[in-house]
């Protein structure tokens, strides 16, 4: 199967945020691959291999990102995990919005002709949760968002996707080509069933680490750099962030000495029981 995986860099979520001129200040940010995108790289690899022999790739996994030159670091990390090819579309972080990203990805899809686009369900920084759905709309493809499991069916013509929805798990079948966005549990041991991996095979929980060999190989894998102009993208942003503020800090409260004191406080002070 030919899969296009999308990747966005985000500032390390454990770093304290800083503001400058009503915007987030990223001058000291440690950039990393958005976790959900890392999970989609993992899912793409699982879909194109036999879990018992991950050295052979059946199909092709291409990872694409829009961003400045430094994004190469995150793309290389995906190549080191096992992806075959990377594409970077040159862009400044702050000129992008969901609409421009989706339209650019649509152009990449035209060019690369994947059967499946795998994406993180959201970027953990901006939490937009909308690029995949927009892309599917533009392409006229079916979509399966918030995937916690994915199984190749109908001889590779469709996928059966378990979706984490508010009421539980919804199972949805989509014909390929399709857009699938992944949730956390897509990296649990039995979440991805490629048809090639034996059903009883259990993956290690979580995305795989790059091996030393993988890191070395990453430097020799195809790495394409493109511009909006080359792709024919002329889209304008449909949204703009006007300002960013810190939310009012929650006051740390007090420690209570006993359960009896806690219950008294909840009853008399907070009046919630």
């Amino acid at each position, binding site marked *: 199967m030919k899969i296009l995986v999308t990747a966005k860099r985000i500032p390390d979520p454990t770093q304290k945020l800083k503001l400058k001129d009503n915007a987030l200040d990223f001058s000291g940010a440690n950039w990393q691959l958005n976790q959900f995108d890392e999970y989609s790289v993992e899912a793409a690899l699982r879909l194109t291999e036999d879990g018992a022999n991950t050295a052979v790739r059946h199909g092709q996994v291409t990872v694409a990102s829009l961003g400045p030159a430094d994004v190469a670091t995150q793309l290389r990390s995906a190549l080191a995990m096992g992806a075959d090819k990377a594409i970077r579309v040159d862009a400044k972080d702050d000129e992008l919005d969901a609409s421009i990203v989706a339209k650019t990805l649509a152009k990449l899809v035209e060019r690369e002709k994947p059967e499946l686009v795998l994406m993180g369900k959201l970027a953990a920084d901006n*939490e937009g949760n909308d690029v995949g759905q*927009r892309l599917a709309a533009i392409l006229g493809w079916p979509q399966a*968002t918030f995937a916690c499991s994915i199984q190749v069916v109908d001889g590779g013509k469709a996928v059966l996707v378990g979706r984490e929805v508010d009421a539980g798990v919804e199972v*949805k079948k989509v*014909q390929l080509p399709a857009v699938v966005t992944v949730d956390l549990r897509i990296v649990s041991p039995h979440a991805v069933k490629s048809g090639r991996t034996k059903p009883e095979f259990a993956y290690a929980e979580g995305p795989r680490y790059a091996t030393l060999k993988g890191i070395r190989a990453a430097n020799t894998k195809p790495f394409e750099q493109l511009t909006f102009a080359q792709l024919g993208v002329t889209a304008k942003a*449909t949204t703009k962030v006007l300002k*960013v503020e810190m939310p009012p800090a929650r006051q740390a409260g007090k420690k209570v000495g006993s359960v009896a004191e806690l219950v008294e406080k909840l009853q008399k002070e907070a009046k919630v029981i």
Partner: protein
Amino acid sequence: MGNILVFLEQADRRLRPAALSAISLSRAIHKASGGKLLFVLIGDSVGDAAKEAAQFGADGVLTVEAPALKHYLAETYAPIVARIAKEQGATTIAGCATSVGKDLLPRVAGILDAGVAPDVSGVVSAKQFRRAVNAGNALQTIEVLSDVVVVSGRQTDFPRAAASGGSSPVTAVAAGAIDAKGAEFVELQTQKRDRPDLTEARVVVSGGRGMKEGKNFAILEQLCDLLGGALGASRAACDAGMVPNDLQVGQTGKVVAPDLYIAVAISGAIQHLAGMKGSKVIVAINKDAEAPIFQVADYGLVTTWEKAIPELLAEIKKIKSAS
């Protein structure tokens, strides 16, 4: 500005609570933008829910019914919402940021080439909204630049609207050609629970990895039942299979804002805090005095749950029987 079209979720012939939050959001936008306020309901049989929706003072309630629309699919619903928005001159399309809203509304926006303000917590003006980003550690004001605005509201930030009486005209709209684009609903795997819904409960009791085993959640369930609350969990507890995944609270789970949130054996990772920081009163019970959860807790108790929860049950029973 033009009119406002609000997508209302319904199930079992009734409006879902999320629909009432969507109405609250749309009323706030309507105040800022004017125009007609229109509701749309889609399904195989939405007549009763539409009658209910007619009591909220909208200028019209539109229903789209067809057997093929029985189960929600983004592929079939999105083109209908987009088409009706055009027909009705709607320049705002609103809904609630549930798992349906988050799946549907960006697809509608993709069809209409419109900007989305996703998961907003407040309305600044007809085109400007406030929303939490970076796991709730920053608040963004976002402006939609396109002529059409698509917006979804975070359920906990828009209280359920109250009916305003009166009766809006209900009009059936043709579904038109329905094309699922090769998508098919197979099944919903769900568990019926007797307790209130996590996102709507007044009290939420959540357990974390420190609960050690699924069967230990029984004691938290007792606490829930005593307080009329819902059970929640951290990701670690869900991943370990102690409780079903749909109980997860946090950035990737449910966002809750009850009057009382009790976090038991949860460390307080930022992704967890993102889902419960908006609670009115937070209680943390954790054996580690340094756990970050204590930084957001109004009341913290440093001890094991094995010791604290049985005592807590006994104390609360005492006051319940006294009152």
